[in-house]
């Protein structure tokens, strides 16, 4: 089956005064129709920048430097302004972490959905309004007609996120990008929203790209997961096999750190020592090497960058220890990167 969305060699860099921050560096991803792909990682891993790059929402000093993003046979990165605007919110929609700040505070919820519909569809204001109320009902908002007349700050956190989803679904997109959709919500509300996303997806078959730092959310929602670290995808594969047998030491460490319930209460938790390198001064070799329990000079962890390569048919990993095939045939010159500025574990 042809991928609905395929990202190849994406590079999004931020040209700051302190230097170039390689927020996204050579990322490859594929999303199938009806599939949920989770993009997981900690803060600064580049997961959100990747998502924003898809719709070309990167603002200066950020810039998409290279790569292609194929959607429906067109490269989103080469579309003109009008072309990409026609994709945004229409074919590929997005929901955000803070539903309150994602709504215009001075406009009523219903009016905002009407505006979203009429941006891409030639329908009367009246028909759009009827559709907006219908959408609000679809996402499980009680008395949707009355809620449409409310200003966003009058809704509760959970209701706002539902309304945000209604807004995103206004034009029945092929892909929904959800950027930390439940991070600002309480766990009981989070469960409701994840259930809702799953049921909506089952109904309309859209592809869901779920950006999250929460591996628990990934486990409960996604079919496949790509784990990002310092601007790169380090491991990717089906959630069940990847979570039960992680290949990359970072994924393994992350899972161990999250699965607190595996450790008897009160005992020391497994930790990943140190912290992520600064994107402005990436070390030579594998970005995780300084924190990696399996890193060895012999394998080239400190000198060469492991190539993202297939482990099995469905799983890919970028690690010399996990996959001998990760050794590069040609090494890109990475002259700008030196390891003397790296902030190492205190």
């Amino acid at each position, binding site marked *: 089956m042809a991928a609905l969305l395929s990202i190849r060699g994406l590079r999004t860099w931020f040209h700051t005064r302190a230097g170039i921050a390689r927020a996204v560096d050579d990322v490859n991803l594929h999303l199938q129709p009806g599939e949920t792909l989770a993009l997981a990682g900690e803060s600064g891993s580049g997961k959100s920048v990747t998502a924003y790059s898809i719709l070309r929402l990167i603002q200066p000093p950020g810039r998409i430097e290279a790569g292609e993003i194929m959607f429906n046979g067109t490269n989103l990165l080469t579309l003109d302004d009008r072309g990409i605007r026609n994709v945004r919110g229409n074919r590929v929609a*997005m929901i*955000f972490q803070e539903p309150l700040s994602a709504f215009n*505070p*001075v406009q009523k919820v219903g009016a905002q959905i009407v505006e979203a519909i009429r941006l891409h569809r030639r329908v009367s204001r009246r028909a759009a309004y009827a559709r907006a109320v219908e959408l609000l009902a679809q996402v499980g908002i009680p008395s949707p007609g009355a809620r449409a007349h409310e200003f966003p700050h009058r809704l509760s956190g959970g209701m706002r996120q539902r309304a945000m989803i209604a807004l995103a679904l206004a034009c029945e997109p092929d892909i929904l990008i959800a950027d930390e959709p439940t991070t600002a919500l309480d766990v009981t509300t989070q469960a409701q929203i994840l259930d809702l996303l799953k049921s909506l997806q089952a109904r309309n078959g859209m592809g869901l790209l779920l950006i999250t730092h929460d591996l628990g959310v990934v486990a409960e929602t996604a079919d496949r997961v790509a784990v990002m670290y310092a601007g790169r995808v380090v491991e990717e594969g089906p959630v069940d096999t990847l979570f039960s047998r992680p290949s990359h030491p970072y994924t393994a460490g992350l899972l161990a750190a999250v699965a607190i319930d595996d450790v008897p209460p009160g005992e020391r938790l497994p930790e990943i020592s140190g912290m992520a390198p600064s994107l402005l001064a990436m070390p030579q070799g594998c970005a995780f090497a300084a924190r990696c329990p399996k890193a060895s000079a012999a394998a080239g962890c400190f000198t060469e960058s492991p190539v993202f390569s297939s482990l099995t048919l469905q799983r890919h990993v970028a690690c010399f220890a996990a996959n001998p095939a990760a050794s590069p045939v040609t090494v890109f010159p990475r002259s700008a990167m030196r390891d003397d500025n790296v902030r190492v574990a205190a």
Partner: protein
Amino acid sequence: MYLALLKELLRNRAAAAGLALLLATLLAATLGRFWFPGDPWEMSGAPMLWPGDDAANPLGTDLMGRDMATGLVSGAGVSLMIGLVSTLIAAGAGITIGALGGFYRGWTDAFLMRVTELFQTVPQFVLAVVLVAIFKPSVATATFAIGIVSWPPTARLVRSEFLALRERGFVEAARALGMGDFRLIVTQILPNALPPVIVIAALNIATAIQTEAALSFLGLGDPNVMSWGTIIGNGREQVVDAWYICGLPGIAIVLVVLAFNLLGEGLNDALNPHLREKET
């Protein structure tokens, strides 16, 4: 929403007083014309009648025997009109320039801000005098001149609002919905940037009325229109003998300026989201 704003304003005592004063001025300017229908330039009694000396001229007459009440009523209309229209000009220019600079940043912003600074380096009033002097003094040129000299503060305010608002989540969300720049500026950012602009506009009207009076005082007003500044200008020689000629229009100016300032303060409180948040 506007009804709620009005309610909010009326609850604020200072703002309510401002509104009342304003309403009185407005009534004077409109209904007052029926009370004192005469030509303000026409002699209607003996010169320099003190207020109360003659029932026909309740507020007295000036040096030329022109009725003070008729002049004041005429001046109210002129002052309000010039204040409002020049403020509209200033707000229009300021919003456009500020919005473009704040939204696009970079070169556009740098250029527009240099232009703004250029206008700000010349003292407002001097610039207004020069502009009126270049064209023929008339209501239109005075209005235009006052508008042209008073847009920079609005532009700076709108720019800083835009700079902050363009980073907000809902602007990004609207962009993700496929909105173009024009729509983003007009439908998303501008409505959120307006409250402080409205406040500054109210204060701007007050300043504009003062500026107009000052221009007329210097004889740069429209020679065919009796404004408060004109009356003061005419009465300045008699300030010792007949202080009321300068005093009455002076009081009128003070009251109207005060009204707009009170209104501006009230609007500021009513539109300030932090203060309002507590109410809801």
